[in-house]
């Protein structure tokens, strides 16, 4: 068949290896599947020169990824795509591979492994696979043997299986046979409603046959699912056009001549079909071990070092029984292969395998599915948490036992699977809010405790710092504070969201975290935390950054502290603040955002995202005249002119005739809006008018970090108001909900409801109050989402709504001062604030050239 020729490059005649050298110990591996090949890879990694390796494989190929056979059957992958170790790999690693040769037994007295070449196209895993009579027996002497014979499909007793039209599903050749036969069939039946059966059904579907799945039990995927989930999966699968019959036991495959006509069931009913694929579980392949006199129970019995009862003979994979357990998934096999490699190479004589807990993520016919541990409660005090959403085929179930996850089923949406699996495998104590387990914490904060994570777990995703590196920084380099760790490993210096984890690790290592006052300084260069700093500045009446350094930092002008101080002073003395431009970041000196190439971007203010033909024309003219390299719509509902030269800025602004959008500074940025009542059929509040009022009022107001706002005409929230620093959402009855502390940038957080009010003016009032409080109490560069996490919405409600501290009047007055102090910075286009504010590089000429012979 054509399929055959595709694979010819992967097939061998039997001596694909290289000549042996006498000195090395000789390792013979029986079985060339996922376990056998993996363990050899592990061994080569540890000790490339230690062994001469010989491998026997009943299949006439190099090792391939059996897991992907489903894709091969449904045609989404070529058979040739799934090879993990092509024949070249064996050659390159000087491994002699006897492919298509089946080991009959190990002669332990003579210390040789005996292999018999198989007939081409014989069923590799069958107990009585036909041997190739003209080929002679192969004997390989050994020092060590590893048995990795895997398992074979199990066929329940039924009449007529084995003859034409009946198939199993385990190897590349099986896929070829099934695909080949399906060509001339209308109806196919899969016996077995487990993972593999369903995969086979999906595969057959793609060959244009009408597929029925028969399950003996009451539900699909008994091993991984509970009845309810099984039932949901059944509906999803039937929706794909596959028929399913549960509680159906096949007794006979009936034929007319050679051809299959129908199936007969125990209940007397029948089903017409042209072909049958049986996938009803697997059985470990143990003949080799038995005939060699090794202990075999359900499978080959191994100790924690993966040794059989013969110290020179090991086993690994599905053919192993360890502590009474056998496994049918790859994860445990990878663990076994690691231990075995450690032991046999002597790299770690104490290595031991203690068995695996099973957590699996599967994709069954495109349905996402994760399952681990128990599927139903066992003890009376087991706690069961269930979430159902049949409409979207989503089902989530948790079994909590003694504060830990004893089992979980996730169907349709497996977002939280990896966290759950980590917790399940690591016996991690679960949080009290069980819902967080299924949906993640509202704040998006990780549920995992650092101490539970493995050493290689990546803690800082911005800078790719592992737990191990952090522990080293603490124990070897002696970092005793989070900031020191950041300085030395960069962990936490990115988005900062991992700092809490870093702190946890630190605690775990040094017990108490050393208190580092500098972590609480408002800016690094002035040894005061914010409230002390503020009162010092107020009491001493300090109005300029240089004065702060002079009076509070004995004259040391720390450049990295300048910007923070400037923003603070501006907040404290809106109108009296002595504005020293050198204390500003370049963006704030020239009111534009510096770009990678030293040019600048210009974002004019477009109130509430509503512009006019007239404005657009002016923007267009400027873009043409200054041949602006890029004109782009921003994520903030405005227009960005990028790539403008510094000395063009003033003219660009003049000719735009629009105020600055402050897209470059730590201040009120934008207020996005949706069309609202003006046009939208759902609108219940005038979001555009409100957005424009908000933007006119608060434009340019400085704050510890950016403030980005939005208003939505209804809870459909088209303008993303729920995830803004401040958001106003119209609800029925002409009311407005005010949300604070939302985020949808580097971190994502839904804002907390501060209060619900009746009028636009009230929205402005409470928003202003919140802004002022944030301006006074937020740490420099702390976005509102961090601020809210720190302060808490209840506290804020008491202070800002119930006026528990009696400061609301003052806050309102302060923000009013800030509003009044606003002027459009782009007016500096007319009168620059200082000489050369907008000038580019200055050309200079040499005065004199002095020769000196020194």
């Amino acid at each position, binding site marked *: 068949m054509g399929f055959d020729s595709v694979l010819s490059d992967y097939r061998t005649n039997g001596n694909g290896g290289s000549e042996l050298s006498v000195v090395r110990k000789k390792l013979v591996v029986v079985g060339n599947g996922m376990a056998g090949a993996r363990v050899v890879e592990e061994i080569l990694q540890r000790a490339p020169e230690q062994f001469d390796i010989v491998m026997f494989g009943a299949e006439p190929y190099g090792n391939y990824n059996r897991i992907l056979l489903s894709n091969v059957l449904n045609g989404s992958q070529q058979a040739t795509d799934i090879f993990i170790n092509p024949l070249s790999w064996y050659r390159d690693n000087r491994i002699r591979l006897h492919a298509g040769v089946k080991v009959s037994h190990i002669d332990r007295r003579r210390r040789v492994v005996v292999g018999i070449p198989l007939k081409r196209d014989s069923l590799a895993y069958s107990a009585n696979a036909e041997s190739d009579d003209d080929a002679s027996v192969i004997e390989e002497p050994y020092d060590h043997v590893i048995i990795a014979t895997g398992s074979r499909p199990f066929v329940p007793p039924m009449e007529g299986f084995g003859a034409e039209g009946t198939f199993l599903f385990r190897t590349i050749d099986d896929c070829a046979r099934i695909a080949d036969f399906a060509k001339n069939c209308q109806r196919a039946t899969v016996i077995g409603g487990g993972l593999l059966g369903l995969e086979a059904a999906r595969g057959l579907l793609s060959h244009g046959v009408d597929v029925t799945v028969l399950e003996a039990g009451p539900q699909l995927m008994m091993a991984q699912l509970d009845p309810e989930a099984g039932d949901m999966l059944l509906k999803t699968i039937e929706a794909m056009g596959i028929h399913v019959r549960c509680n159906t036991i096949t007794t006979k495959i009936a034929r007319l001549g050679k051809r299959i006509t129908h199936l007969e069931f125990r209940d007397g009913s029948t089903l017409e079909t042209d072909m049958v694929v049986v996938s009803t579980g697997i059985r470990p392949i143990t003949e080799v071990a038995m005939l060699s006199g090794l202990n075999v129970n359900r499978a080959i019995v191994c100790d924690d070092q993966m040794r059989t009862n013969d110290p020179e003979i090991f086993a690994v994979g599905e053919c192993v029984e360890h502590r009474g357990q056998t496994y049918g998934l790859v994860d445990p096999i990878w663990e076994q292969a690691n231990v075995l490699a450690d032991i046999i190479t002597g790299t770690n004589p104490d290595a031991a395998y203690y068995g695996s807990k099973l957590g699996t993520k599967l994709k069954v016919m495109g349905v996402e599915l994760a399952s681990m541990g128990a599927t139903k409660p066992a003890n009376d005090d087991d706690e069961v948490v269930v979430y159902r959403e049949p409409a979207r085929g989503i089902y989530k179930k948790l079994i909590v036992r003694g504060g830990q996850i004893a089992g979980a089923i996730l169907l349709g949406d497996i977002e939280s699977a990896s966290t759950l699996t980590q917790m399940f495998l690591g016996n991690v104590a679960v949080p009290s809010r069980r819902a967080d387990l299924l949906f993640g914490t509202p704040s998006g904060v990780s549920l995992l405790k650092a101490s539970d994570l493995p050493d290689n777990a990546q803690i800082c995703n911005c800078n790719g710092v592992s737990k191990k590196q952090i522990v080293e920084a603490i124990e070897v380099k002696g970092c005793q504070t989070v900031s020191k760790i950041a300085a030395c490993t960069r962990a936490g210096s990115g988005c900062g969201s991992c700092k809490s984890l870093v702190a946890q690790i630190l605690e775990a290592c040094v017990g108490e975290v050393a208190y580092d006052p500098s972590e609480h300084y408002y800016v690094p260069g002035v040894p005061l935390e914010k409230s002390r700093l503020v009162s010092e500045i107020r009491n001493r009446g300090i109005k300029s950054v240089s004065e702060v350094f002079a009076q509070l930092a004995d004259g040391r002008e720390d450049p990295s502290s300048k910007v923070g101080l400037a923003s603070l002073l501006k907040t404290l003395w809106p109108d009296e603040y002595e504005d020293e431009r050198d*204390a500003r970041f370049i963006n704030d000196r020239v009111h534009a955002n510096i770009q990678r190439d030293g040019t600048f971007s210009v974002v004019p203010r477009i109130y509430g995202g509503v512009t006019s033909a007239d404005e657009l024309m002016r923007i267009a003219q400027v873009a043409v005249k200054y041949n602006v390299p890029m004109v782009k719509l921003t994520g903030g509902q405005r227009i960005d002119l990028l790539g403008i030269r510094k000395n063009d800025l003033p003219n660009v602004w003049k000719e735009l005739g629009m105020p600055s959008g402050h897209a470059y500074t730590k201040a009120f940025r934008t207020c996005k809006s949706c069309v609202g009542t003006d046009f939208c059929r759902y609108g219940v509040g005038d979001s555009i008018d409100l957005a424009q009022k908000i933007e006119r009022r608060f434009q340019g107001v400085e704050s510890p970090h950016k403030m980005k706002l939005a208003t939505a005409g209804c809870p459909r929230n088209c303008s993303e108001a729920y995830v803004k620093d401040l958001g106003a959402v119209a609800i029925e009855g002409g009311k407005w909900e005010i949300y604070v502390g939302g985020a949808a940038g580097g971190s994502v957080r839904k804002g907390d409801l501060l209060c619900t009010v009746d009028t636009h003016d009230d929205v402005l009032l409470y928003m202003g109050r919140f802004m002022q409080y944030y301006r006074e109490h937020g740490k420099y560069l702390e976005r509102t989402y961090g601020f809210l996490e720190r302060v808490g919405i209840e506290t804020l409600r008491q202070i800002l709504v119930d006026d528990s501290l009696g400061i609301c009047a003052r806050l309102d007055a302060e923000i009013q001062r800030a509003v009044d102090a606003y002027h459009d910075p782009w007016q500096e286009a007319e009168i620059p604030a200082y000489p*050369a504010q907008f000038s*580019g590089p*200055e050309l*200079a000429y040499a*005065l004199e050239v002095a020769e000196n012979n020194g």
Partner: protein
Amino acid sequence: MAKAAVTTTVNLGSVNAIPLGQGRCYVVANQEIAVFRQRDGTLFATQNRCPHRQGPLAEGLVGSGRVICPLHAHQFNLQTGSGGEPEECIRVYGVQEIAGNIILNQSQF
């Protein structure tokens, strides 16, 4: 026997062209040079382009003899040219204020 050193001396004009505490970029013989005027009056001169990704150092924040690049905040010592990041440093030039003018010495050996 020491070899001859050619020192080009350049008058960059009035110090007041550089606002206190800021820097400014001058082009001398096709070379971009950043001159900084710290608040205490001290002048520094260095290459203008940051070794990291060519950020314009003249636009950076200055203080206590250090400059912070405006693009990714790498820091450099204005006296010695040594940088905060391993094997990152910048070229420094002799510069002084004479009669209100910025006098830059570019020595090539």
